[in-house]
């Protein structure tokens, strides 16, 4: 292309590319002041589209007054539980109760990718199962007024017994779990128990017993290691929170469940208490000595598969794991759950104590066309038949009381349900990860640093505390309390 002579004197209009770019930059800046006005126009445009929620007549069959002729859009997270429970159980139930209201079903593994543009575009779906790696930030949605206040739902008469409010037919704590500063915005539907999972077959075959104390646990790890099997691992690439969950569970046992409450409430120094440090120290040692090769670079599916192939003995998870792995679980594997062993001899809680929660979040979007329809869908889900159908399909119990009567559980669920019973009143939960995604992120990163030997327990609590303090100071982040 060097065809033309290029001396600037010959070419009065010659421009260097440098000036091109400089002037372009200036042009960009000059244009800015006019923007505010136009942006305001764009804004008002999108505000216009938020329609006033429709209402229908209330009746015994329709206590929330959902409009009978309006459709509802249902979005299900197609992850560990799949979406069959919705298409085969809940949606038919809703349609049967409201034959004129159409149900439009969508499912996705990346909820935010699908739903965020819909919300931004003024086409918010009524009902969303917000879960998975790419879920939307509940805290941000609440702070932005995007979520429907579910008080009316929980106060509505239940499907099975109109004399009872919906809130009284659920496992205690369900409404609180989904509440933000006292108002319920999220329905957590699945009763979830967290612990350490192992193969009953592998343990029986080798004569290993689940550990209750820390010395038993390390002895067990040694025995497993001697067998040439990796004793303990979590997936560092994308599931580090499975491990901070274990560390905090241990911390709660050492120092009492209030430790977690303080962490959730962003109390000063909440992470730096001795109990958290001790727990971190103990687990860091497990990470250093008993890890699966390369676990830090593996995704949860890789690591779970290793366990199914008997190359890994113990894996921290919630009780969804049995359903999630059903395709790859070999015959006779027999998932079993063990609670985190007591680290000190003077732990405040027993070794049977555990973290359990209502898990798997569902929400109704306030700016959708038919939020009352969305709540009505939830009411149907919360019937005994809804709960039972869910459990039959995905093998996990729901928060609906009595909905598992007459059902036999799979070995894994049975073992976690037994553990839940054994825990008695020593059941706790934590919330900060749902409230402050940034803090969750920092905890995950710090957990990898700790468990793979790059930092010590002191630095671990130090850096998460620093993040918690930053969030506390940051006025742009909405705070939550419990």
């Amino acid at each position, binding site marked *: *292309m*060097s065809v033309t002579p290029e001396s600037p004197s010959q070419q009065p209009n010659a421009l260097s590319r440098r000036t091109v770019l400089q002037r*372009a930059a200036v042009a960009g800046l000059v244009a800015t002041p006019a923007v505010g006005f136009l942006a305001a126009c*764009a804004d008002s*445009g999108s505000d216009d589209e938020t329609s006033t929620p429709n209402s229908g007549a209330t009746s015994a069959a329709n206590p929330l007054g959902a409009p009978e002729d309006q459709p509802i859009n249902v979005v299900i997270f197609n*992850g560990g539980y799949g979406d069959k429970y919705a298409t085969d159980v809940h949606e038919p139930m809703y349609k049967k109760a409201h034959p004129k209201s159409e149900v439009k079903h969508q499912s996705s*593994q990346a909820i935010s990718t699908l739903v965020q*543009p819909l919300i931004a575009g003024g086409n918010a779906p009524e009902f969303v199962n917000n879960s998975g790696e790419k879920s939307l930030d509940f805290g941000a949605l609440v702070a932005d007024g995007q979520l429907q206040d579910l008080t009316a739902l929980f106060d509505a008469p239940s499907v099975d017994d109109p004399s009872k409010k919906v809130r009284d037919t659920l496992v205690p704590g369900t409404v609180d779990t989904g509440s933000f500063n006292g108002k319920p915005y999220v329905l957590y539907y699945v009763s979830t128990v967290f612990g350490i999972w192992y193969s009953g077959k592998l343990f029986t075959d080798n004569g290993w017993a689940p550990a209750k104390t820390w010395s038993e646990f390390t002895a067990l790890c040694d025995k497993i290691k001697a067998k040439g099997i990796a004793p303990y691992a979590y997936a560092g690439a994308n599931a580090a929170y499975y491990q901070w969950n274990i560390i905090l569970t241990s911390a709660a046992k050492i120092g009492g469940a209030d430790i977690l409450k303080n962490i959730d409430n962003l109390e000063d120094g909440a992470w730096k208490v001795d109990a958290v440090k001790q727990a971190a120290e103990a687990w860091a040692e497990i990470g250093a000595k008993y890890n699966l090769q390369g676990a830090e670079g593996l995704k949860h*599916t890789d690591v779970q598969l290793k366990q199914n192939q008997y190359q890994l003995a113990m894996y921290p998870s919630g009780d969804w794991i049995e359903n999630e792995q059903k395709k*790859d679980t070999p015959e006779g594997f027999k998932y079993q759950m063990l609670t985190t062993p007591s680290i000190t001899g003077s732990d405040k809680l027993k070794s049977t104590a555990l973290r359990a929660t209502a898990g798997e979040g569902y929400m109704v979007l306030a700016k959708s066309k038919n939020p009352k329809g969305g709540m009505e869908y939830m009411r149907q889900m919360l019937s005994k038949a809804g709960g039972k159908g869910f459990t039959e399909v995905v093998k996990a119990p729901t928060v609906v009381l009595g909905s598992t009567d007459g059902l036999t559980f799979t070995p894994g669920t049975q073992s976690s349900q037994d553990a839940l019973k054994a825990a008695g009143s020593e059941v706790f939960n934590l919330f900060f990860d749902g409230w402050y995604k940034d803090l969750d992120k920092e905890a995950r990163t710090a957990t990898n640093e700790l468990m793979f030997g790059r930092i010590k327990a002191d630095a671990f609590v130090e850096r998460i505390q620093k993040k918690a303090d930053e969030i506390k100071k940051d006025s742009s982040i909405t705070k939550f309390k419990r």
Partner: protein
Amino acid sequence: MTAIIGRDAPGQRSGGQGARVVPKSERPRRKLNLAGGIGHVFLAIWALMIIIPLLWVFLASFKNTTEIFSSPWTVPDHLRWENWGRAWTKAHVGTYVLNSVLVVTLATFGTMLLSSMAAYVLARYKFVGNRIIYFLFVAGIAFPPFLAVVPLFFQVKQLGLLNTYTGLIIVYIAYSLPFTIFFLTSFFRSLPNSVAEAATIDGASHTRLFFSVMLPMAKPGLISLTIFNLIGQWGQFLLPLVLMAGARDKWVLTQGIQEISTSAGYEADWAGLFAALTISILPMIVMYMIFQRQIQAGLTAGAVK
């Protein structure tokens, strides 16, 4: 003597011509052969670095999960075509490939047409505002596209073009303009004036001058930029993710692969994922092999500067 033997090595145009070569001094010749030998080793290593992973994906598409997660150097114990079947039917890879072909073909065509028009006018006509328009186009090269994604979403929505082929194609065109116009402008500037003048004297209109004289002259440049745009738009990942999210039947290949690889994480269908990858890679390889001469000729034309 080694030099003479070396010269008859396969790959030379024809062995028989070796005798006609004028012999040169021995010293540099031996060095040349040595360089060729070592060079071959490097070339072969690089080629293997490309072929092995691709071959591995191909083999993995016939394996089952256990085989995939054992040693990478094992061969599947039989050909599991059902993996391909799943990828094709369940994951709709075929549809995604067709969608990609449709969108990219039309968008590249539109990009080339509009860019060459704008570039031609900007390169060869003086008028008020010429330089400002040119600067604004060129500045676009430096902007990261996904910075604009949120407002862009609303712009597209305003026209009711979300989740439509038309919308995606237009946006592809708009985002390909800066780069294409930048290079085509300098290309049009480099074309000689004499032909244009001759045509003008013959009474050709501006439009005819452009379409029947200047465009054909710019062919080498147009070809290389067409190739750039085809490659760039084929691999476009962000724009469809945002603008086509709601219409699964219109998804392009990059979206499809992304979805499949996320879902492989949940359903552990790794074999299906690799079958899908193979299905998506094969047409590109075949296309490239068919058109590689034109592609290289286009680049060799020297327009790319």
